[in-house]
């Protein structure tokens, strides 16, 4: 009883902190209102949800956290000026992939699974490797002078459509073939053999 209360309190506290920090930063002048705050909050949610995805014990909750994470990312896409991608993100990831994964979770859930160890014995090593990787990427990004960086560009949907079906017609077709192949193979693999198993 008290544990779930504690959890709720901690969650609320964290959420508060997540909102409070950007506001505080704006007040301090480090952030500007509008996009910056949005970006910050979305980024917070993204990272937080991401961490939850990889750390939570209950895999269904992980899946739900993943949806949150994808949503936050869609928000960032909007901030970045790619609303179409954001839409696609919502459709593809939240609408399709996440659902797929949730179904898979249901299908493969066993009674004893959640009670067992969630993490590998090597999780400390994994954490260190991940940190190092993040540091490397961050450093490399920070040190690099990006060429021809201009203002943030908002891509119009119609130009996008034009590009997609003009310049990118071949990749587009290839992707469809890829999906076709994946569906054929997926159906075959997931199909239950007659007279075998549940």
């Amino acid at each position, binding site marked *: 009883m008290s544990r779930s209360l504690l959890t709720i309190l901690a969650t609320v506290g964290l959420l508060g902190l997540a909102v409070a920090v950007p506001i505080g930063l704006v007040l301090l002048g480090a952030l500007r209102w509008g996009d910056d705050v949005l970006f910050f909050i979305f980024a917070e949610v993204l990272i937080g949800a991401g961490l939850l995805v990889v750390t939570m014990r209950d895999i269904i909750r992980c899946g739900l956290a993943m949806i949150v994470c994808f949503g936050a990312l869609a928000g960032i896409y909007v901030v970045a000026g790619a609303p179409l991608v954001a839409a696609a993100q919502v459709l*593809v990831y939240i609408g399709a992939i996440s659902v797929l*994964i949730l179904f898979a979770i249901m299908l493969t859930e066993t009674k004893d699974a959640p009670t067992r160890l969630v993490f590998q014995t090597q999780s400390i090593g*994994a954490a260190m490797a991940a940190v190092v990787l993040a540091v490397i*990427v961050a450093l490399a990004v920070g040190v690099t002078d*990006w060429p021809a960086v201009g203002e943030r560009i908002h891509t119009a949907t119609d130009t*996008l459509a034009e590009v997609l079906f003009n310049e990118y017609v071949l990749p587009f077709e290839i992707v469809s073939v890829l999906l076709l192949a994946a569906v054929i193979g*997926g159906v075959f693999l997931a199909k239950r053999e007659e007279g075998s198993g549940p």
Partner: protein
Amino acid sequence: MSDSLDAYLVLAGLLFAIGTFGFLARRNAISMLMSIELMLNAVNLAIVAFGSFIPSLSADGSVIAIMVMAVAAAEATVGLSIVIAIFRNRKTPLVDEYDAMRQ
């Protein structure tokens, strides 16, 4: 901050690292699959960021991101079907118990 390419890229790096951690640390096949999705999303974030900040890539960024999403969907399909197939054989989703072949 939202005008800085670096911020997006660092964010992408962080997400990628989180995905990496999940992949390395989790035991459940579907958790690992989710981690992979996080990593792909990180890549997508980077791609979109480049598209947003580099004029010559403005349209391409979005297109490529969408395509990567499609690829991710395909991968998820295949992956989940394989997970289901092996679950039928092994009755467990814990990948570290799939070690019949080694050395």
